[in-house]
């Protein structure tokens, strides 16, 4: 029941959710001829994908070093956030009940993993390349700005600040989950909430391109909202982090949309030459 088990559970659940969503959201018609479109889209967004991979790789390397730098130069904003919002999270937790805890724990781990991966698959399979480009650029912006914030701000979440009022519901309910989240997060990095920002990003992109997958939009919004609430309900994030995350998502999607539209306007002969500001940056990085 170590990390491997948790990962296996996660993979199984996410794959199952993907299959379910492919059947209901994309549908039989949408899947017809999908492999060809996926290949075409992959070619066209390859530079953007490269950018995201670079950002993720930098993130992976810098995250640990970032914590050290953070203690040297960062500002400990824990007290300020606590003073700003007081017992908001504690009040939210006052409705805690085992079914709710189970639901939000599942949403926080499985729902989130599904929510951020499914649109990548779905948008790759559609005709238009703007949704996938928007999404990938927005993800990259989220991670890049998130990392900057994590270095600049040291902040502990409510479960680590007011343990007398806020319980660490996720780990109390499902201790092994910490093996997974401990890989991804450090407990000093709570502002902003990347769980929230990436979820809201998906929801915003789903809203913009709701004509393509009409069923995905309400599902994405509901799931994103649940995830945002779950981060607070489980005692992991402050409301401030969630607001910060949503703001980050808005910025990231705005940049993503601009990049995607710029790429689309630069002509139908997409893909042969990297276009758009971000793609040019990506190309420069790759050079």
């Amino acid at each position, binding site marked *: 029941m*170590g990390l491997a088990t948790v990962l296996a559970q996660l993979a199984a659940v996410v794959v199952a959710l993907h299959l379910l969503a492919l059947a209901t959201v994309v549908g039989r018609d949408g899947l017809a001829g999908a492999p060809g479109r996926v290949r075409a889209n992959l070619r066209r967004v390859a530079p953007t994908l490269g950018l995201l991979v670079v950002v993720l790789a930098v993130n992976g390397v810098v995250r640990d070093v970032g914590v050290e730098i953070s203690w040297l130069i960062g500002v400990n904003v824990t007290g300020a956030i606590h003073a700003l919002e007081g017992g908001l999270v504690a009040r939210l937790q006052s409705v805690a009940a085992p079914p709710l805890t189970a639901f939000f724990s599942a949403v926080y781990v499985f729902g989130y993993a599904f929510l951020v991966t499914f649109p990548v698959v779905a948008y790759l399979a559609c005709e238009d390349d703007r949704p996938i480009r928007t999404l990938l650029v927005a993800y990259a912006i989220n991670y890049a700005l998130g990392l900057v914030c994590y270095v600049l701000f040291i902040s502990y979440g409510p479960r680590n600040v007011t*343990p*007398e009022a806020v319980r660490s519901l996720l780990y109390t309910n499902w*201790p*092994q989950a910490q093996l997974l989240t401990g890989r991804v997060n450090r407990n000093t990095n709570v502002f902003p909430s990347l769980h929230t920002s990436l979820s809201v990003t998906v929801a915003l992109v789903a809203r913009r391109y709701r004509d393509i997958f009409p069923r995905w939009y309400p599902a994405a919004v509901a799931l994103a909202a649940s995830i945002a609430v779950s981060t607070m309900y489980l005692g992991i994030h402050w409301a401030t982090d969630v607001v910060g995350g949503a703001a980050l998502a808005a910025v990231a999607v705005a940049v993503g949309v601009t990049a995607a539209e710029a790429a689309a306007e630069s002509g139908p002969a997409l893909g042969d030459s990297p276009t758009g500001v971000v793609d040019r940056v990506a190309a420069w990085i790759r050079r």
Partner: protein
Amino acid sequence: MRRLRAASGWESVSPVSIGIATLPADADPYALRVAQSVAGWFRAAGLRVTVTPVAPEELYRRVLIRNDFDAFVGRLPARLREPDGLYALLHSRFGSEPGWQNPFGYANFDVDERLTEARAATGETRSEALAAVQHGVARTQPFSLVAFPDAVRAVRGDRFAGWTRRDYRSPLGYLALDASPERTDRAADAGAIDEPTETAAVTADEPSTLRVVVTDRRPTENLNPLAAEFRWSGVLTGLLYDRLGHETASGRVEPWLADGWEFERVDGRPRARVRLRDDLAWHDDEPVTAADVAFTYALLSDVTLGRTDEAAETATESEAAVAAPRFRGRSSLVADAEALDRLTVEIRFVDCTAEVATRALAVPVVPEHVWRGRTGSASVGGVDFGAASEALVTNNVPPVGSGPFAFGRNVPGDRLVLERDDDHFLADAAPADLPGDVDGLPPYERVDVTVVGADETAVSMVASGDADVTGTAVGAETIPRIGRSEPVDLVVGRSASPYVVGYNARRPPLTNPRFRNTLGHLLDRRALVDDVFEGYAWPAASPLAGTDLVPPDLRFEDGHPVTPFLGSDGTVDAAAARETFREAGYEYDDGTLVERD
């Protein structure tokens, strides 16, 4: 103009604010909750208080090394079973030294004198001196003692036996573990049937590895026995580095790396001849010699070795001496140490009794051939950091020790693997010569330390069979989880390491003993024990509580005998608290405690 001069002497008042630094809930199950409660009581008395959670390494760096704090909530290290531990903790001569020696900057003539007296006295005189120290500390509150917690651990009795009544803050506790009798029976049965089964049993689940799960990542990153901010109990570095003698549960120091020692008095001071065991070797196969021991004492008293070369074989009196921040109480007992021959070292002590002097033998011995090169000043990217010697800054990975376990590998923040050294003297030492219950090398060949982020996770790792013991003590709130799990046993032992609210007596108004005394009155220790520790702790008034050295009038019975709580049932009587502060010379402005600048 005269009016201006006369008026300028009268300066305005400013509110008293105190920042309490403490560990986040992930790192310590109780500290933050104690800090929040204490902050609430201080606020009720009109102080401005902030509580800031800080990661362990950073907290200890601030408190112990930089002295950059107002107050902290944390634990004192468990050196207090032996009363001489108080000397380093409270003597004002250590006020400016980094480490666990007087991090409070506490200076009290009377306490200093009594501490010095207790080192050299015996019998009645010593008890009286120690009683005076305890009274002085209880009254002037360099730290407000909260409680001695129970060390709660989840262990698996089906793989190893002998978990109970062990001290897991000492390597001896781990070294004395036995293979579980159930398991030995099973292995023996399997072997009796035929050979293939035996080999299968060995590969399948023979307990060749002791799997320890901890919530403290520091030992996976740093194994420097001298780095105060990275060490807590020092149990892992204790497996890597042998000491001349080991402190046992009774508080006595018994020979370990040493074969034995003899004390004599020369010029009224103790002198010891310590003989090492034969054929000792470092993990890099160099021999362990008396010169290493002499070097260790020189290094502990001055990590720069006077910043000189071969001439500084022993401790120098140089002004620039920087004592190692750990083992300071012990190293301060040693005047100098000299190797007489390959296996004999002569240690001359300062004025103290032989009993106290023996404590100085319980320090880890480090290899001269590795550490001599670390006495220069530490540099980062070519920039020298003057006072910090490389010996204090190095991560010391991989470490070269002489202990029963050698370094295997580490993944910083994640894992540490130690491998048994089968050439260690434990392999063929007679059990009668060994301290504690240690009777030879332990049955496991490897110690595998895994880091997790939370107590619940640590317990669930033990419950699911992925670990044998929670190496760091877990919070009382995990006890139901331990109880629910069939193969997991609960081990509860009384810890000698109390929770305290430590004050920085270098900063006004905490410089004022009367002010600290009043803060001491604002702690409802009984309520903390009931609410925060869920009853798994003992409130105390003396850091020596639990020993027979506590005078009767310092026993914590219905309340704190010296600074009883100003209030009841966890609620501060604000009027009484304010009155006490006013009596101490402080004023209130609109309900806020103020001081004149």
